[in-house]
């Protein structure tokens, strides 16, 4: 059974068909990459999958369960994890506290008004354990405000993982990263992908070709092609519509 199944999703903004009858699946053990030119409707699609936007028609199934009408937090509770294109974190809080919040959410301690200090210390230990061995280990007590762009991208991924999602929706995890950071991120995603299936929205073709087990191409809200890396590289429509006839395909 597909962990994520999207069928015949439609979203209109006035006269604009932003999502045009989109169907796709993410299987266990899969990194499914979604590519497409700017304005193709990738973010609109992601936002519908996460629950920030309601589709006009179609269904979204998570592990066989219909989540089309559920709120963002309810979907998260069912195992949908995400990262944002522009990182969205608790900016005044430290790295440790950001992760601790995710651990706390997972454990459901949220209405406890009586567990000061001792309770937080335990969550912080768990957060530090997650940070250990990552490039952020030394930044545990640093507020997000003082982190570099690349560090924020890494932290957001850790926060999403701390929630122990069944599937990850990654909205351009490479955006704005330098070459070295990108290589690290690709390695990191490969490790994570071995355990957690992903829907990867990405512009960086090198990353997509390095990671994806399947690629779907979104143009003007429609999926015009879907297949393996080799198939997409060879697909004439894709070259025409997205990559540009003359574009180098690595």
């Amino acid at each position: 059974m597909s962990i994520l199944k999207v069928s015949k999703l439609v979203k209109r903004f006035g006269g604009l068909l932003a999502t045009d009858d989109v169907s796709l699946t993410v299987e266990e053990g899969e990194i499914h990459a979604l590519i497409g030119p700017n304005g193709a409707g990738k973010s609109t699609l992601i936002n519908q999958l996460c629950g920030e936007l309601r589709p006009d028609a179609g269904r979204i199934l998570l592990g066989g369960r219909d989540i089309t009408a559920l709120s963002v937090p309810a979907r998260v509770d069912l195992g949908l994890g995400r990262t944002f294109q522009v990182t969205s974190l608790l900016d005044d809080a430290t790295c440790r506290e950001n992760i601790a919040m995710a651990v706390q959410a997972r454990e459901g301690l949220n209405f406890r008004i009586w567990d000061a200090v001792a309770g937080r210390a335990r969550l912080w230990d768990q957060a530090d354990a997650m940070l250990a061995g990552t490039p952020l280990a030394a930044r545990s007590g640093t507020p997000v405000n003082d982190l570099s762009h690349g560090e924020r991208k890494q932290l957001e991924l850790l926060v999403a993982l701390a929630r122990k999602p069944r599937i990850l929706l990654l909205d351009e995890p490479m955006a704005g990263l330098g070459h070295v950071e990108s290589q690290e991120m690709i390695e990191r995603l490969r490790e994570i992908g071995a355990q957690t299936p992903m829907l990867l929205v990405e512009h960086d073709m090198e990353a997509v070709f390095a990671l994806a087990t399947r690629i779907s191409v979104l143009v003007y809200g429609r999926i015009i092609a879907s297949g393996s890396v080799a198939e997409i590289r060879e697909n004439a429509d894709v070259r025409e519509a997205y990559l540009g006839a003359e574009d180098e395909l690595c």
Partner: protein
Amino acid sequence: MRIAFALLAAAALIALPFVTEAAGQPALLSLATRVLIYAIAAASLNFILGYGGMISFGHAAFFGVGAYTVGILFAHAGSEPLFGFIPGSKQMLITLPAALVISGLFAALIGALSLRTGGVQFIMITLAFAQMLFFFFVSLTPYGGEDGIIIRRTNDLFGLNMRDKTTLYFVILAIAALFFALLWRVVNSSFGAVLKGIRQNERRMAALGFAPYRYKLYAFVLAGMGAGLAGALMANFLRFASPDMMHWTKSGEFMIMVILGGVGSFFGPIFGAAAFLTLETFLAGWTEHWQLAMGAILLVVVLGTKGGIAGLLAKLWGARK
């Protein structure tokens, strides 16, 4: 160092009645008592405003409801039960919990409706609810209407002589100390962490699985209960409850105390309440247009300090180290 500072503050608060008596300034004791009560109200507003990011402009509603709970229960003590079945009471051990429950219920109702909005709408709708309550009590003639309700005697507690100003001061000091101890735990609890997270980034919190509305409502109810407690104490102190206690200008005063003291700082509301009431007392002694001077001072604090009096103290503290 911190503990030493806390002990010093505690010693000063305990010694205060004896100092004012020795100095022949009984008015200062009454000022200190009011500071304690307003500090509770301001801290409860700071809980939702500073920690939760909810700019409620109707916080005095719960202050007034707490005060009227004491007043109405007193009016029925030893006579007809309220609504025919709720007996009145003069016992603080009954009236204070009653005020907490009733103000919490009002906060649940008002919060459930107003938290569906945000931003400016939230400010306006909380203001509107508070004004509705204000006009309701103005027209509630069985309990004094706009003149308010007189409470002939302060509530009884453990056979203490509550008419004695010093005794009442110590009772209120003990309750305030308890309140701030509880508040400290709540602010630093898991729930407190969620609340601070929602203020910083609601979208992020939703992406972690937190439905913000429920947490905000819970905080709103807790804050309403805090204000209700302060109102109940004020009714006991003034031996009087009136619609003015829930007028929008009172909500404004609470907000000024929070801003003066430092938004989102734990001890800020205490400094804010002390500064506001002291300034009010002395400025009003010089001129009836004291609010003009207060406005100027508020302007300086907002523009000139990062984080009010608490922020200023923290800066001085940091500079000394």
